[in-house]
């Protein structure tokens, strides 16, 4: 199989990831719940994981690295911490349902969309400049669109937020592991990310980097201040009620070590080269629309004239090529780009893909396009 759905989950992992996860299951217990060796071993592993993340994402203090179930979990904490009933949030036109659904669940919330044209960072920035006013409770923007790979101008948006005194939440779901994610440089209130995409960890892991005060989403035991009935006021305990996913954290640590050793810049360059190669080939195929721009990471979206995107996904799956078709849980992004009626077919790459796979998949897509009803 050729797997081009890494924007959803990277399937091929460094071998040490499943190895350490499996080892953790039978050798490590609950961190913070006992002074015995398996408990303290788990605590040590969790600390190494936080430290590794702190180094990778410029967090001064490992305590501010919170283990979550996924990026959605982190985004829910971040949004609930900053936007209350009747509050106002400004979001980009490329946000995922992981941002929009938690927002719309807040009673009386006002959501302003700073929409700019696809692959136009200046246009996106100008939209934020118009919408971000000091009365806004939070600005939320993904670093990279999960549909189009559009790299949004988060550096500039971060500066704007700082200048206007508005907390900034970054959804780094598609950039953690491939672009520089910089909590302190951005001065962000929160940065949320999954562990199972560009960090090559297991599903069920994510990180929330906290630059500001956070409110718990879950309440329960933390192994600290047990005599009190309110949640601890310090991180990470405040946001980590209940038993940790230690096996997941172990795999995530191994995944982040892999990313650090390989180099974020090198991984990005590799994926971008693969995406570029794919788009070069597909742009020459009559009937194929390629969504391409300068400010783009290592994923791309396409459409084939006369074929429903889901049919393309299905046909490719039958031929051993795994892609993602549809709205990618991001109807707003499709609405902004004008593809809400068609959806797109997304091809996304990882450090483990190679150019030969791109060429083979491009040939199959060319055949499909040739046979599509016009």
């Amino acid at each position, binding site marked *: 199989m050729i797997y081009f759905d890494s924007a959803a989950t990277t399937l091929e992992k460094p071998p040490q990831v499943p190895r350490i996860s499996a080892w953790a299951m039978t050798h490590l217990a609950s961190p913070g719940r006992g002074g015995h060796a398996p408990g303290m071993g788990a605590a040590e592993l969790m*600390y190494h994981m936080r430290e590794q993340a702190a180094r990778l994402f410029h967090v001064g203090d*490992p305590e501010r690295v919170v283990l979550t179930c996924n990026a959605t979990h982190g985004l829910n904490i971040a949004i609930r911490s900053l936007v209350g009933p009747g509050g106002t949030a400004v979001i980009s036109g490329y946000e995922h349902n992981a941002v929009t659904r938690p927002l719309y669940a807040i009673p009386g919330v006002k959501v302003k969309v700073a929409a700019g044209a696809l692959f136009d960072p200046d246009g996106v920035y100008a939209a934020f400049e118009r919408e971000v006013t000091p009365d806004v409770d939070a600005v939320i923007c993904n670093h990279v669109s999960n549909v189009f790979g559009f790299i949004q101008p988060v550096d500039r948006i971060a500066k704007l937020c700082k200048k206007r005194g508005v907390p900034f939440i970054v959804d780094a779901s598609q950039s953690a592991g491939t672009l520089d994610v910089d909590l302190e440089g951005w001065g962000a209130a929160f940065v949320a990310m999954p562990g199972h995409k560009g960090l090559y960890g297991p599903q069920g892991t994510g990180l929330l980097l906290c630059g500001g005060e956070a409110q718990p989403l879950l309440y329960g035991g933390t192994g600290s*201040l047990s005599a009190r009935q309110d949640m601890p006021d310090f991180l990470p305990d405040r946001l980590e009620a209940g038993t940790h996913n230690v096996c997941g954290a172990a795999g995530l640590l191994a995944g982040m070590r892999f990313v650090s050793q390989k180099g974020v810049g090198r991984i990005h360059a590799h994926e971008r080269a693969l995406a570029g190669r794919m788009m070069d080939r597909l742009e020459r195929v009559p009937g194929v629309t390629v969504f391409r721009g300068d400010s783009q990471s290592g994923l791309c979206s396409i459409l084939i004239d006369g074929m429903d995107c889901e049919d393309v996904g299905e046909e490719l799956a039958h031929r051993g090529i795994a892609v993602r078709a549809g709205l990618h849980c991001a109807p707003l992004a499709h609405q902004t780009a004008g593809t809400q009626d068609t959806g797109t077919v997304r091809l996304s790459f990882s450090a483990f893909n190679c150019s030969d796979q791109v060429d083979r998949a491009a040939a199959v897509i060319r055949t499909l396009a040739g046979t599509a009803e016009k």
Partner: protein
Amino acid sequence: MVYYLIICRSLTYAQRTAQVLERVGISGSVQRAPRIISKEGCGYCVRVAERRLTDALTVLRREGMAPKQVFLQTAEGEYSEVKP
């Protein structure tokens, strides 16, 4: 042996404290704080040797991690709070 227990607000903070000390060659082990001194329940501390306490406190203050509570643990297993 007499030890000092540097009380920490969380396990992660205790680990960070031990790491800061380790970097300057002060050995400190992370352990659960004895119930008798952890009034709010389930806490962690870093245990350092008696002769290293002054250096440890200097380093922690320099790092902005001055402890709020320190206890002396006697050879008999008794605890008494000392001014950090």
